[in-house]
């Protein structure tokens, strides 16, 4: 086993730190949370440094990268920035387009990205009545006599839905009933007649705005379909496993930042005539926080390593998401305990990180559904 990073990985991490130090200054981060977004300048700089092209195929100007390297990059992006920005989540819809899109869709997505620094599309997956329970989805596309399709339904938690020009919608083919498992992906410009949105307000991760998207008899054509008919959800599922791992990479990065903040504060904070790091209750907290971060990190990179080696991570990614997201949230929670009253103010960033990390316990699949996915597999694994 080799836990050492290559020169190239270390240099990449140095670049990421340089990038975050330069662009995610305290003032900028504060503004991002107040205004719900991120300056275009950062998106452009991220593109220029080539970070957003990592993992995109070379023929589209991308840079080949294994999943472990991507994970390292993401962890550092969030660790150094100290905030839950949009940058990595941006890549997820790009990955879907690269994998399932038509030649034209792929080229358009890359051109748009190179021009603006922003991805071209959001992902419209969850519905008010169907989150992890995707069978209950009711959004449906029905074929019309003229060969076009009419798309109807409502999507929610659509990250960046109001900012990006396109959205990728998963909808059932023809029949919205629970029994119908056939779904397709549709690539839809947000300015298509019948598409409308409503903002939602978050209690954390405010710089990654999400919204509801309504589709009212939206006319779409066969050319707008991504990938094969009927396999839409299967396609997304495949990328869910990677997405879950990368969410944990964000989570570890921010938990590490929380741990560092709390340890630094505990070294300075004097109570009963000495720094509180001399108190055993605080020492225990710091120790447990470090264990949680290190454990999650080990599990994360093992999962990514398996992905790189073509092994199935259906079980690993679900366990990782469940365990990692909640352990990292607990790290932030313990950091908040160390800060106590001060941590509950906006004077320091720990409260913000706390709220940010709580969100990742359901984004990308809830804590409970992860147990549902993993539990069945564990039972099966030891059945004989």
């Amino acid at each position, binding site marked *: 086993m080799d836990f050492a990073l290559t020169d190239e990985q270390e240099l990449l991490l140095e*670049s990421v730190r340089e990038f975050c130090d330069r662009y995610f200054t305290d003032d900028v981060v504060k503004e991002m949370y107040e205004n719900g977004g991120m300056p275009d300048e950062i998106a452009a700089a991220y593109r220029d440094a080539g970070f957003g092209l990592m993992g995109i195929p070379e023929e589209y100007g991308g*840079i080949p990268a294994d999943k472990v390297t991507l994970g390292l990059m993401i962890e550092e992006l969030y660790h150094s920035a100290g905030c839950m920005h949009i940058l990595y989540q941006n890549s997820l819809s790009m990955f879907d387009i690269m994998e399932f899109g038509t030649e034209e869709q792929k080229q358009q997505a890359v051109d748009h990205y190179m021009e603006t620094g922003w991805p071209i599309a959001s992902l419209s997956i969850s519905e008010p009545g169907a989150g992890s329970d995707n069978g209950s989805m009711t959004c449906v596309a029905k074929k019309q006599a003229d060969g076009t399709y009419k798309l109807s339904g409502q999507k929610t938690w659509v990250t960046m839905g109001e900012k990006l020009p396109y959205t990728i919608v998963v909808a059932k083919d023809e029949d919205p009933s629970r029994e119908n498992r056939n779904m397709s992906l549709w690539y839809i410009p947000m300015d298509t007649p019948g598409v409308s949105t409503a903002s939602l307000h978050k209690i954390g991760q405010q710089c990654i705005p999400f919204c509801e998207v309504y589709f009212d008899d939206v006319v779409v054509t066969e050319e707008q379909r991504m990938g094969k008919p009927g396999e839409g959800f299967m396609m997304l599922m495949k990328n869910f496993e990677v997405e879950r791992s990368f969410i944990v990479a964000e989570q570890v990065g921010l938990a590490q930042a929380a741990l560092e903040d709390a340890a630094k504060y505990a070294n300075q904070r004097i109570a009963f005539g000495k720094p509180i790091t001399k108190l055993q209750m605080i020492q225990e907290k710091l120790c447990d926080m470090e264990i949680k971060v290190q454990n999650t990190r080990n599990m994360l990179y093992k999962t990514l390593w398996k992905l790189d080696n073509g092994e199935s991570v259906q079980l690993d990614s679900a366990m990782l998401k469940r365990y990692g997201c909640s352990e990292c949230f607990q790290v932030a929670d313990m950091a908040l305990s160390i800060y106590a009253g001060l941590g509950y103010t906006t004077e320091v960033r720990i409260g913000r990180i706390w709220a940010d990390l709580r969100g990742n316990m359901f984004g990308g699949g809830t804590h409970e559904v992860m147990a549902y996915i993993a539990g069945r597999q564990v039972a099966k694994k030891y059945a004989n």
Partner: protein
Amino acid sequence: MKIVVSFKVVPDDQDIQVSGDGSLDYAKAHQIVSTYDLNAMEAAAQLAAANEGSEVVGITVGGKKIDDSKTKKNVLARGIDQLYMTADDACADLDAGATAAALAELVAKVGEYDLIICGDGSADNYAQQVDVQLAAKLGLPVVNGATKIEAGDGVVTVVRTLEDVVETVEVPLPAVVSVAPDVALPRIPGMKDILAAGKKPMNVFAAEGTFANSIEVVDCKAPKQADRKLEIIDAADDGAIEKFAAAIKAAL
């Protein structure tokens, strides 16, 4: 044009520890390219980009341990085409004159060149002298404080931002120009640059000559903190502003 850019590898000052007796401990410090030399590299890379067919050669001298694969790739990921390095303990801890002598020996191996660019000053000594000493050793004209460099026919036109004036000068080539940090914002190397760096030529040499310092270091310790009163008050406390103002008035 062929542009040589000189840089120094130094311990990262963030990692330098102060021992109990005030001496400096570099054991935990990893080595980095001296900060302002990154601006020099960027200036060289931008000048090369502005003049088609240009090549940028990075040069450095230092102790044996600067011959480190990550350090070399780091430099070559920043718009530098190839690297010349003298990594020899005979080149460790040199003063400006001795550094220039070691660099001059290395520059001879690079062959023909048009321009040597140096940074504003090294993170450790910040003497701002290697540029001048190197030019003197090579018999070249030199200017410092450059905030803009443009290539002309056998000359570079340099804008120098000095203390009292902004000078525009024409320097005949070959020449040495040292740049102020404002000259260019260092790039953030992306993975493409980093991957390409490992494939670029890295020419590492041992020192041929010996390089004697003319400055003897007697002692180097962390500074003692001045004794300060450390009376800290919270502005929200009653009469805090008045108390602070009174202290200022008393000190005036």
